[in-house]
Protein backbone atom coordinates (compact mmCIF):
# COMPACT_ATOMS: atom_id res chain seq x y z
CA UNK A 1 0.00 0.00 0.00
CA UNK A 2 1.45 3.36 -1.00
CA UNK A 3 -0.99 5.62 0.83
CA UNK A 4 -3.23 4.65 3.69
CA UNK A 5 -5.55 7.21 5.26
CA UNK A 6 -7.24 6.09 8.50
CA UNK A 7 -9.97 7.94 10.42
CA UNK A 8 -9.32 11.39 9.02
CA UNK A 9 -11.30 14.05 10.86
CA UNK A 10 -11.05 17.70 9.82
CA UNK A 11 -12.73 20.56 11.60
CA UNK A 12 -13.07 24.19 10.55
CA UNK A 13 -14.00 25.80 13.84
CA UNK A 14 -17.11 23.94 14.93
CA UNK A 15 -17.83 22.55 11.48
CA UNK A 16 -16.92 18.89 11.16
CA UNK A 17 -15.91 18.86 7.48
CA UNK A 18 -14.34 15.41 7.12
CA UNK A 19 -15.81 12.59 9.18
CA UNK A 20 -13.84 9.42 9.87
CA UNK A 21 -12.63 9.09 6.30
CA UNK A 22 -10.46 6.06 5.54
CA UNK A 23 -9.16 4.96 2.16
CA UNK A 24 -6.07 3.64 0.49
CA UNK A 25 -4.12 3.91 -2.71
CA UNK A 26 -2.00 1.02 -3.96
CA UNK A 27 1.19 1.26 -5.95
CA UNK A 28 0.49 1.81 -9.64
CA UNK A 29 -3.20 2.60 -9.32
CA UNK A 30 -5.34 5.49 -10.42
CA UNK A 31 -7.81 6.08 -7.60
CA UNK A 32 -10.64 8.56 -8.04
CA UNK A 33 -12.31 10.46 -5.24
CA UNK A 34 -15.55 11.85 -6.57
CA UNK A 35 -18.19 14.00 -4.98
CA UNK A 36 -20.15 17.20 -5.32
CA UNK A 37 -18.80 20.66 -4.70
CA UNK A 38 -18.30 21.11 -0.95
CA UNK A 39 -18.17 17.40 -0.15
CA UNK A 40 -14.67 17.84 1.31
CA UNK A 41 -12.45 16.58 -1.49
CA UNK A 42 -10.00 19.47 -1.34
CA UNK A 43 -9.87 19.28 2.48
CA UNK A 44 -8.74 15.67 2.16
CA UNK A 45 -6.03 16.65 -0.34
CA UNK A 46 -4.82 19.48 1.88
CA UNK A 47 -4.72 17.18 4.89
CA UNK A 48 -2.64 14.60 3.03
CA UNK A 49 -0.22 17.34 1.96
CA UNK A 50 -0.01 18.65 5.54
CA UNK A 51 -1.46 22.10 4.84
CA UNK A 52 -4.19 21.34 7.39
CA UNK A 53 -4.18 18.61 10.01
CA UNK A 54 -6.53 15.82 10.95
CA UNK A 55 -7.70 15.39 14.53
CA UNK A 56 -6.53 11.90 15.35
CA UNK A 57 -6.23 9.10 12.82
CA UNK A 58 -3.18 8.38 10.72
CA UNK A 59 -1.81 8.91 7.24
CA UNK A 60 0.83 6.43 6.15
CA UNK A 61 2.78 7.14 2.99
CA UNK A 62 5.28 4.58 1.75
CA UNK A 63 5.43 3.08 5.22
CA UNK A 64 5.96 6.40 6.98
CA UNK A 65 3.54 8.28 9.25
CA UNK A 66 3.07 11.76 7.74
CA UNK A 67 -0.02 13.13 9.50
CA UNK A 68 2.01 15.35 11.82
CA UNK A 69 4.66 16.40 9.30
CA UNK A 70 5.23 20.00 8.22
CA UNK A 71 3.88 20.55 4.68
CA UNK A 72 7.28 21.43 3.17
CA UNK A 73 8.74 18.10 4.30
CA UNK A 74 6.16 15.96 2.51
CA UNK A 75 7.14 16.60 -1.15
CA UNK A 76 10.60 15.21 -0.42
CA UNK A 77 9.03 11.80 0.22
CA UNK A 78 7.62 11.73 -3.31
CA UNK A 79 4.08 12.81 -2.50
CA UNK A 80 3.27 15.74 -4.75
CA UNK A 81 0.03 17.68 -5.12
CA UNK A 82 -1.28 19.61 -8.10
CA UNK A 83 -3.66 21.96 -6.31
CA UNK A 84 -7.17 22.87 -7.34
CA UNK A 85 -7.16 25.97 -9.52
CA UNK A 86 -3.62 25.10 -10.73
CA UNK A 87 -1.86 27.74 -8.58
CA UNK A 88 1.04 28.27 -10.93
CA UNK A 89 3.33 31.13 -9.87
CA UNK A 90 1.89 33.70 -12.26
CA UNK A 91 4.71 36.22 -11.89
CA UNK A 92 7.41 33.68 -12.64
CA UNK A 93 8.28 32.25 -16.03
CA UNK A 94 7.22 28.78 -17.15
CA UNK A 95 10.83 27.67 -16.74
CA UNK A 96 11.07 29.10 -13.22
CA UNK A 97 7.83 27.35 -12.27
CA UNK A 98 9.32 24.05 -13.42
CA UNK A 99 12.50 24.78 -11.46
CA UNK A 100 10.38 25.32 -8.35
CA UNK A 101 8.91 21.88 -8.93
CA UNK A 102 12.40 20.41 -8.61
CA UNK A 103 13.19 22.66 -5.63
CA UNK A 104 14.24 19.84 -3.30
CA UNK A 105 16.24 17.85 -5.81
CA UNK A 106 19.99 17.97 -6.12
CA UNK A 107 20.48 15.41 -8.93
CA UNK A 108 21.12 17.89 -11.75
CA UNK A 109 21.44 15.34 -14.54
CA UNK A 110 18.15 13.65 -13.73
CA UNK A 111 16.42 17.01 -13.34
CA UNK A 112 17.55 17.87 -16.86
CA UNK A 113 16.20 14.53 -18.12
CA UNK A 114 12.89 15.09 -16.38
CA UNK A 115 12.70 18.57 -17.87
CA UNK A 116 13.11 17.10 -21.34
CA UNK A 117 10.40 14.54 -20.58
CA UNK A 118 8.03 17.26 -19.34
CA UNK A 119 8.66 19.28 -22.50
CA UNK A 120 8.03 16.17 -24.59
CA UNK A 121 4.76 15.53 -22.80
CA UNK A 122 3.67 19.18 -22.86
CA UNK A 123 5.28 20.64 -25.98
CA UNK A 124 3.42 23.93 -25.54
CA UNK A 125 5.34 24.55 -22.32
CA UNK A 126 8.63 24.41 -24.19
CA UNK A 127 7.40 26.94 -26.73
CA UNK A 128 6.44 29.24 -23.89
CA UNK A 129 9.24 28.53 -21.43
CA UNK A 130 10.33 32.16 -21.10
CA UNK A 131 6.81 33.51 -20.83
CA UNK A 132 5.27 34.51 -17.48
CA UNK A 133 2.98 31.74 -16.27
CA UNK A 134 0.21 34.29 -15.71
CA UNK A 135 -0.01 34.85 -19.47
CA UNK A 136 -0.84 31.19 -20.21
CA UNK A 137 -4.35 29.96 -20.96
CA UNK A 138 -6.21 27.84 -18.42
CA UNK A 139 -5.31 24.59 -20.16
CA UNK A 140 -1.65 25.56 -20.45
CA UNK A 141 -1.62 26.51 -16.77
CA UNK A 142 -3.02 23.08 -15.91
CA UNK A 143 -0.25 21.50 -17.99
CA UNK A 144 2.32 23.68 -16.26
CA UNK A 145 0.98 22.74 -12.82
CA UNK A 146 1.23 19.07 -13.78
CA UNK A 147 4.64 19.50 -15.38
CA UNK A 148 5.86 21.30 -12.27
CA UNK A 149 4.66 18.39 -10.13
CA UNK A 150 6.40 15.87 -12.42
CA UNK A 151 9.64 17.80 -11.98
CA UNK A 152 9.59 16.61 -8.36
CA UNK A 153 9.81 13.01 -9.60
CA UNK A 154 6.70 11.92 -7.67
CA UNK A 155 5.78 8.45 -6.47
CA UNK A 156 2.21 9.56 -5.82
CA UNK A 157 0.56 12.44 -7.64
CA UNK A 158 -2.45 14.10 -6.02
CA UNK A 159 -4.52 15.80 -8.70
CA UNK A 160 -7.21 18.14 -7.42
CA UNK A 161 -9.85 18.95 -10.06
CA UNK A 162 -7.53 18.91 -13.09
CA UNK A 163 -10.47 19.42 -15.46
CA UNK A 164 -11.88 22.47 -13.74
CA UNK A 165 -12.78 25.26 -16.13
CA UNK A 166 -11.40 23.55 -19.22
CA UNK A 167 -13.11 22.97 -22.57
CA UNK A 168 -14.25 19.38 -23.32
CA UNK A 169 -11.42 18.86 -25.82
CA UNK A 170 -8.83 19.97 -23.28
CA UNK A 171 -10.44 17.82 -20.59
CA UNK A 172 -9.95 14.77 -22.83
CA UNK A 173 -6.36 15.78 -23.49
CA UNK A 174 -5.62 16.22 -19.77
CA UNK A 175 -7.17 12.85 -18.91
CA UNK A 176 -5.13 11.13 -21.64
CA UNK A 177 -2.02 12.68 -20.14
CA UNK A 178 -2.99 11.46 -16.65
CA UNK A 179 -3.34 7.93 -18.05
CA UNK A 180 0.09 8.21 -19.68
CA UNK A 181 1.73 9.53 -16.53
CA UNK A 182 0.26 6.56 -14.66
CA UNK A 183 1.55 4.15 -17.33
CA UNK A 184 5.02 5.56 -16.75
CA UNK A 185 4.84 4.34 -13.17
CA UNK A 186 3.37 7.24 -11.20
CA UNK A 187 0.50 6.37 -8.85
CA UNK A 188 -2.38 8.84 -9.06
CA UNK A 189 -5.03 9.98 -6.59
CA UNK A 190 -7.53 11.98 -8.57
CA UNK A 191 -10.18 14.26 -7.10
CA UNK A 192 -12.90 15.23 -9.55
CA UNK A 193 -16.35 16.67 -9.89
CA UNK A 194 -16.37 15.33 -13.42
CA UNK A 195 -17.24 11.83 -12.20
CA UNK A 196 -17.76 10.46 -15.69
CA UNK A 197 -14.24 11.21 -16.86
CA UNK A 198 -12.64 10.28 -13.56
CA UNK A 199 -14.35 6.88 -13.42
CA UNK A 200 -13.41 6.19 -17.04
CA UNK A 201 -9.67 6.21 -16.28
CA UNK A 202 -9.62 5.12 -12.62
CA UNK A 203 -8.98 1.60 -11.28
CA UNK A 204 -10.89 2.19 -8.07
CA UNK A 205 -13.10 4.96 -6.76
CA UNK A 206 -14.53 6.42 -3.57
CA UNK A 207 -17.63 8.59 -3.41
CA UNK A 208 -17.55 11.39 -0.87
CA UNK A 209 -20.77 12.96 0.43
CA UNK A 210 -20.70 15.78 3.02
CA UNK A 211 -17.51 14.54 4.59
CA UNK A 212 -18.30 10.79 4.55
CA UNK A 213 -17.21 8.09 2.15
CA UNK A 214 -20.50 6.46 1.18
CA UNK A 215 -19.60 4.20 -1.74
CA UNK A 216 -16.34 2.56 -2.74
CA UNK A 217 -15.12 -0.15 -5.08
CA UNK A 218 -13.63 -0.79 -8.51
CA UNK A 219 -14.32 2.18 -10.78
CA UNK A 220 -16.56 0.15 -13.08
CA UNK A 221 -18.76 -1.00 -10.23
CA UNK A 222 -18.99 2.49 -8.81
CA UNK A 223 -19.95 3.79 -12.25
CA UNK A 224 -22.71 1.17 -12.48
CA UNK A 225 -24.07 1.92 -9.01
CA UNK A 226 -27.59 3.32 -9.48
CA UNK A 227 -27.11 5.93 -6.77
CA UNK A 228 -23.94 7.21 -8.40
CA UNK A 229 -25.59 7.20 -11.83
CA UNK A 230 -28.43 9.26 -10.50
CA UNK A 231 -26.39 11.75 -8.46
CA UNK A 232 -23.21 12.23 -10.51
CA UNK A 233 -23.48 10.74 -13.96
CA UNK A 234 -26.95 11.98 -14.91
Amino acid at each position, binding site marked *: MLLEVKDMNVYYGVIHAIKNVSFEVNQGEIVALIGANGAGKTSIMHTI*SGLIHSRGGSIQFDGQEISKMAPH*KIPGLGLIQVPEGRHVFTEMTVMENL*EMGAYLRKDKENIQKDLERVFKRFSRLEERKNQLAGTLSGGEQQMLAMGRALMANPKLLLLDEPSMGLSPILVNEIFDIIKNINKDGVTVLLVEQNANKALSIADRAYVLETGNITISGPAKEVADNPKVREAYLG
Partner: protein
Amino acid sequence: MDFLSFLITGLGLGSVYAIIALGYTMVYGIAKMLNFAHGDVIMIGAYVAFFAVGKFNMPSLVAVLFSVLVCTLLGVLIERLAYKPLRDASTLSVLITAIGVSYFLQNAAQILWGSDTKIFPTMFDFGNISLFNGQLQISLLTLITILVCIVIMVVLTLFINKTKTGKAMRACSEDKATAQLMGINVDTTISITFAIGSGLAAIASVLLCSTYPAVNPTLGSMPGIKAFTAAVFGGIGSIPGAFIGGLLLGVLETLAKAYISSQMSDAIVFLVLIIVLLIKPTGLLGKKISEKV
Protein backbone atom coordinates in the same frame (compact mmCIF):
# COMPACT_ATOMS: atom_id res chain seq x y z
CA MET B 1 25.55 75.03 -9.87
CA ASP B 2 23.65 75.16 -6.58
CA PHE B 3 20.93 73.05 -8.09
CA LEU B 4 23.39 70.36 -9.12
CA SER B 5 24.85 70.32 -5.65
CA PHE B 6 21.39 70.01 -4.06
CA LEU B 7 20.50 67.28 -6.51
CA ILE B 8 23.55 65.21 -5.57
CA THR B 9 22.92 65.73 -1.84
CA GLY B 10 19.32 64.67 -2.45
CA LEU B 11 20.40 61.54 -4.30
CA GLY B 12 22.73 60.69 -1.41
CA LEU B 13 19.93 61.05 1.14
CA GLY B 14 17.58 59.24 -1.21
CA SER B 15 20.03 56.35 -1.48
CA VAL B 16 19.90 55.89 2.28
CA TYR B 17 16.09 55.97 2.14
CA ALA B 18 16.16 53.44 -0.69
CA ILE B 19 18.36 51.02 1.26
CA ILE B 20 16.01 51.26 4.26
CA ALA B 21 12.94 51.05 2.03
CA LEU B 22 14.21 47.72 0.68
CA GLY B 23 13.76 46.23 4.15
CA TYR B 24 10.15 47.41 4.31
CA THR B 25 9.29 46.35 0.80
CA MET B 26 10.90 42.89 0.94
CA VAL B 27 9.29 42.04 4.25
CA TYR B 28 5.96 43.30 2.96
CA GLY B 29 6.37 41.36 -0.27
CA ILE B 30 7.04 38.05 1.46
CA ALA B 31 5.58 38.19 4.97
CA LYS B 32 2.74 40.58 3.93
CA MET B 33 3.33 42.72 6.99
CA LEU B 34 4.55 46.24 7.73
CA ASN B 35 7.51 45.94 10.04
CA PHE B 36 7.36 49.28 11.84
CA ALA B 37 10.28 48.24 14.03
CA HIS B 38 12.55 48.42 10.96
CA GLY B 39 13.55 52.04 11.70
CA ASP B 40 14.64 51.05 15.18
CA VAL B 41 16.88 48.33 13.82
CA ILE B 42 18.70 51.21 12.08
CA MET B 43 19.07 52.90 15.47
CA ILE B 44 20.53 49.73 17.00
CA GLY B 45 22.88 49.43 14.03
CA ALA B 46 24.07 53.00 14.62
CA TYR B 47 24.77 52.33 18.32
CA VAL B 48 26.62 49.13 17.50
CA ALA B 49 28.84 50.97 15.00
CA PHE B 50 29.24 53.83 17.48
CA PHE B 51 30.54 51.53 20.22
CA ALA B 52 32.53 49.35 17.83
CA VAL B 53 34.54 52.33 16.65
CA GLY B 54 34.42 54.56 19.76
CA LYS B 55 34.90 51.99 22.53
CA PHE B 56 36.49 48.98 20.90
CA ASN B 57 38.57 50.83 18.32
CA MET B 58 37.57 48.51 15.53
CA PRO B 59 38.63 49.54 12.03
CA SER B 60 35.72 51.24 10.25
CA LEU B 61 35.01 48.47 7.77
CA VAL B 62 35.13 45.81 10.48
CA ALA B 63 32.73 47.94 12.54
CA VAL B 64 30.31 48.09 9.61
CA LEU B 65 30.44 44.31 9.19
CA PHE B 66 29.96 43.85 12.93
CA SER B 67 26.93 46.14 12.86
CA VAL B 68 25.51 44.25 9.86
CA LEU B 69 25.98 40.98 11.74
CA VAL B 70 24.26 42.25 14.91
CA CYS B 71 21.34 43.75 12.99
CA THR B 72 20.90 40.61 10.88
CA LEU B 73 20.64 38.49 14.02
CA LEU B 74 18.37 41.06 15.66
CA GLY B 75 16.05 41.08 12.65
CA VAL B 76 15.76 37.29 12.64
CA LEU B 77 15.25 37.27 16.42
CA ILE B 78 12.47 39.88 16.22
CA GLU B 79 10.72 37.86 13.52
CA ARG B 80 11.00 34.57 15.42
CA LEU B 81 9.93 35.95 18.81
CA ALA B 82 7.40 38.62 17.93
CA TYR B 83 5.95 37.95 14.47
CA LYS B 84 6.16 34.22 13.87
CA PRO B 85 3.67 33.34 16.62
CA LEU B 86 1.23 35.69 14.85
CA ARG B 87 1.51 34.04 11.42
CA ASP B 88 -2.22 33.27 11.36
CA ALA B 89 -3.36 36.32 13.32
CA SER B 90 -5.12 39.35 11.84
CA THR B 91 -2.99 42.00 10.12
CA LEU B 92 -4.03 44.49 12.81
CA SER B 93 -2.53 42.32 15.58
CA VAL B 94 0.72 42.05 13.64
CA LEU B 95 0.79 45.81 13.01
CA ILE B 96 0.25 46.60 16.70
CA THR B 97 2.95 44.11 17.63
CA ALA B 98 5.38 45.77 15.21
CA ILE B 99 4.70 49.16 16.84
CA GLY B 100 5.22 47.48 20.22
CA VAL B 101 8.59 46.08 19.10
CA SER B 102 9.52 49.56 17.89
CA TYR B 103 8.82 51.10 21.34
CA PHE B 104 10.55 48.20 23.03
CA LEU B 105 13.76 48.79 21.07
CA GLN B 106 13.68 52.56 21.64
CA ASN B 107 13.16 52.17 25.37
CA ALA B 108 15.72 49.39 25.67
CA ALA B 109 18.25 51.70 23.99
CA GLN B 110 17.31 54.49 26.37
CA ILE B 111 17.86 52.27 29.42
CA LEU B 112 21.09 50.77 28.09
CA TRP B 113 22.73 53.83 26.61
CA GLY B 114 20.83 56.87 27.94
CA SER B 115 18.64 59.30 26.07
CA ASP B 116 21.33 61.88 25.38
CA THR B 117 22.54 62.39 21.83
CA LYS B 118 26.00 61.02 21.17
CA ILE B 119 28.27 62.27 18.43
CA PHE B 120 28.88 59.57 15.85
CA PRO B 121 32.61 59.17 15.21
CA THR B 122 33.99 59.96 11.78
CA MET B 123 34.26 56.50 10.27
CA PHE B 124 35.03 57.48 6.74
CA ASP B 125 36.77 60.73 5.86
CA PHE B 126 37.01 60.98 2.12
CA GLY B 127 36.91 64.75 1.80
CA ASN B 128 35.42 66.58 -1.14
CA ILE B 129 36.03 66.71 -4.81
CA SER B 130 35.83 70.00 -6.61
CA LEU B 131 34.50 70.42 -10.08
CA PHE B 132 34.14 73.42 -12.41
CA ASN B 133 37.12 75.32 -10.89
CA GLY B 134 35.86 74.83 -7.37
CA GLN B 135 32.35 76.08 -8.11
CA LEU B 136 30.91 72.68 -7.28
CA GLN B 137 32.03 70.84 -4.17
CA ILE B 138 30.79 67.29 -3.81
CA SER B 139 31.35 65.16 -0.74
CA LEU B 140 32.93 61.90 -1.78
CA LEU B 141 30.92 60.20 0.97
CA THR B 142 27.73 61.21 -0.84
CA LEU B 143 28.98 59.68 -4.08
CA ILE B 144 29.99 56.50 -2.24
CA THR B 145 26.55 56.35 -0.60
CA ILE B 146 24.91 56.52 -4.02
CA LEU B 147 27.31 53.91 -5.36
CA VAL B 148 26.67 51.56 -2.41
CA CYS B 149 22.94 51.89 -3.00
CA ILE B 150 23.31 51.02 -6.69
CA VAL B 151 25.52 48.02 -5.91
CA ILE B 152 23.03 46.74 -3.30
CA MET B 153 20.22 47.17 -5.80
CA VAL B 154 21.99 45.23 -8.56
CA VAL B 155 23.13 42.41 -6.25
CA LEU B 156 19.69 42.08 -4.69
CA THR B 157 17.95 42.03 -8.06
CA LEU B 158 20.31 39.31 -9.30
CA PHE B 159 19.81 37.37 -6.07
CA ILE B 160 16.00 37.52 -6.34
CA ASN B 161 15.92 36.63 -10.03
CA LYS B 162 18.76 34.17 -10.48
CA THR B 163 19.34 32.16 -7.31
CA LYS B 164 17.23 29.26 -6.10
CA THR B 165 16.65 30.96 -2.74
CA GLY B 166 15.64 34.17 -4.48
CA LYS B 167 13.17 32.31 -6.67
CA ALA B 168 11.79 30.54 -3.61
CA MET B 169 11.27 33.97 -2.05
CA ARG B 170 9.27 35.09 -5.08
CA ALA B 171 7.24 31.88 -4.95
CA CYS B 172 6.47 32.48 -1.24
CA SER B 173 5.59 36.07 -1.98
CA GLU B 174 2.97 34.97 -4.47
CA ASP B 175 1.49 31.86 -2.89
CA LYS B 176 2.72 30.42 0.41
CA ALA B 177 0.61 27.26 0.41
CA THR B 178 1.72 26.26 -3.08
CA ALA B 179 5.33 27.12 -2.25
CA GLN B 180 5.10 24.59 0.58
CA LEU B 181 3.76 21.99 -1.86
CA MET B 182 7.09 22.44 -3.71
CA GLY B 183 8.99 21.72 -0.48
CA ILE B 184 9.89 25.36 0.21
CA ASN B 185 10.18 26.11 3.93
CA VAL B 186 8.19 29.32 4.34
CA ASP B 187 9.51 30.05 7.85
CA THR B 188 13.11 29.86 6.67
CA THR B 189 12.31 32.05 3.68
CA ILE B 190 10.73 34.70 5.90
CA SER B 191 13.75 34.57 8.22
CA ILE B 192 16.08 35.11 5.26
CA THR B 193 14.01 38.11 4.21
CA PHE B 194 14.25 39.67 7.67
CA ALA B 195 17.97 38.91 7.76
CA ILE B 196 18.60 40.70 4.47
CA GLY B 197 16.41 43.69 5.34
CA SER B 198 18.00 44.12 8.76
CA GLY B 199 21.54 43.70 7.46
CA LEU B 200 20.82 46.44 4.93
CA ALA B 201 19.44 48.61 7.75
CA ALA B 202 22.85 48.43 9.42
CA ILE B 203 24.56 49.63 6.25
CA ALA B 204 22.00 52.44 5.99
CA SER B 205 22.64 53.43 9.61
CA VAL B 206 26.37 53.87 9.06
CA LEU B 207 25.80 55.85 5.85
CA LEU B 208 23.17 58.00 7.56
CA CYS B 209 25.25 58.68 10.66
CA SER B 210 28.34 59.44 8.61
CA THR B 211 26.39 62.28 7.01
CA TYR B 212 24.34 63.33 10.06
CA PRO B 213 26.56 62.30 12.99
CA ALA B 214 24.12 62.20 15.89
CA VAL B 215 23.06 59.00 17.67
CA ASN B 216 20.09 58.77 20.03
CA PRO B 217 17.34 56.22 20.78
CA THR B 218 14.80 57.80 18.42
CA LEU B 219 17.29 58.18 15.59
CA GLY B 220 15.54 55.56 13.46
CA SER B 221 12.00 56.94 13.63
CA MET B 222 12.14 59.68 11.02
CA PRO B 223 14.31 57.88 8.44
CA GLY B 224 12.12 54.82 9.08
CA ILE B 225 8.94 56.71 8.31
CA LYS B 226 10.53 58.43 5.31
CA ALA B 227 11.78 55.12 3.93
CA PHE B 228 8.38 53.54 4.51
CA THR B 229 6.91 56.48 2.59
CA ALA B 230 9.47 55.86 -0.15
CA ALA B 231 8.48 52.20 -0.32
CA VAL B 232 4.79 53.09 -0.62
CA PHE B 233 5.63 55.87 -3.08
CA GLY B 234 7.47 53.41 -5.35
CA GLY B 235 4.89 50.65 -4.86
CA ILE B 236 5.27 48.51 -1.76
CA GLY B 237 6.47 44.99 -2.50
CA SER B 238 8.49 46.15 -5.50
CA ILE B 239 12.29 46.27 -5.23
CA PRO B 240 12.86 48.72 -8.10
CA GLY B 241 9.97 50.70 -6.61
CA ALA B 242 11.86 51.08 -3.33
CA PHE B 243 14.90 52.28 -5.25
CA ILE B 244 13.04 54.88 -7.31
CA GLY B 245 10.80 55.90 -4.40
CA GLY B 246 13.80 56.39 -2.14
CA LEU B 247 15.75 58.49 -4.63
CA LEU B 248 12.73 60.64 -5.53
CA LEU B 249 11.91 61.22 -1.89
CA GLY B 250 15.48 62.22 -1.03
CA VAL B 251 15.72 64.64 -3.95
CA LEU B 252 12.28 66.08 -3.24
CA GLU B 253 13.09 66.62 0.41
CA THR B 254 16.43 68.28 -0.30
CA LEU B 255 15.04 70.56 -3.00
CA ALA B 256 12.09 71.50 -0.81
CA LYS B 257 14.52 72.36 1.98
CA ALA B 258 16.68 74.42 -0.35
CA TYR B 259 14.07 76.30 -2.33
CA ILE B 260 10.87 76.38 -0.29
CA SER B 261 11.29 76.01 3.42
CA SER B 262 13.37 73.75 5.59
CA GLN B 263 10.60 73.61 8.20
CA MET B 264 7.99 72.68 5.63
CA SER B 265 10.10 70.15 3.73
CA ASP B 266 8.67 67.06 5.46
CA ALA B 267 5.13 68.35 5.03
CA ILE B 268 5.81 68.90 1.33
CA VAL B 269 7.23 65.39 0.95
CA PHE B 270 4.20 63.81 2.60
CA LEU B 271 1.85 66.02 0.57
CA VAL B 272 3.42 64.70 -2.62
CA LEU B 273 2.96 61.16 -1.31
CA ILE B 274 -0.73 61.82 -0.70
CA ILE B 275 -1.13 63.19 -4.22
CA VAL B 276 0.69 60.22 -5.77
CA LEU B 277 -1.46 57.78 -3.84
CA LEU B 278 -4.63 59.61 -4.86
CA ILE B 279 -3.68 59.30 -8.52
CA LYS B 280 -2.03 55.88 -8.35
CA PRO B 281 -3.04 54.05 -5.17
CA THR B 282 -0.55 51.21 -5.63
CA GLY B 283 2.44 53.56 -5.95
CA LEU B 284 4.62 54.26 -8.99
CA LEU B 285 5.62 50.66 -9.79
CA GLY B 286 3.03 48.88 -7.68
CA LYS B 287 1.11 46.01 -9.11
CA LYS B 288 -2.55 46.33 -9.76
CA ILE B 289 -4.33 44.41 -7.05
CA SER B 290 -6.80 42.16 -8.76
CA GLU B 291 -9.45 40.30 -6.85
CA LYS B 292 -9.29 36.56 -7.40
CA VAL B 293 -12.59 35.09 -8.45
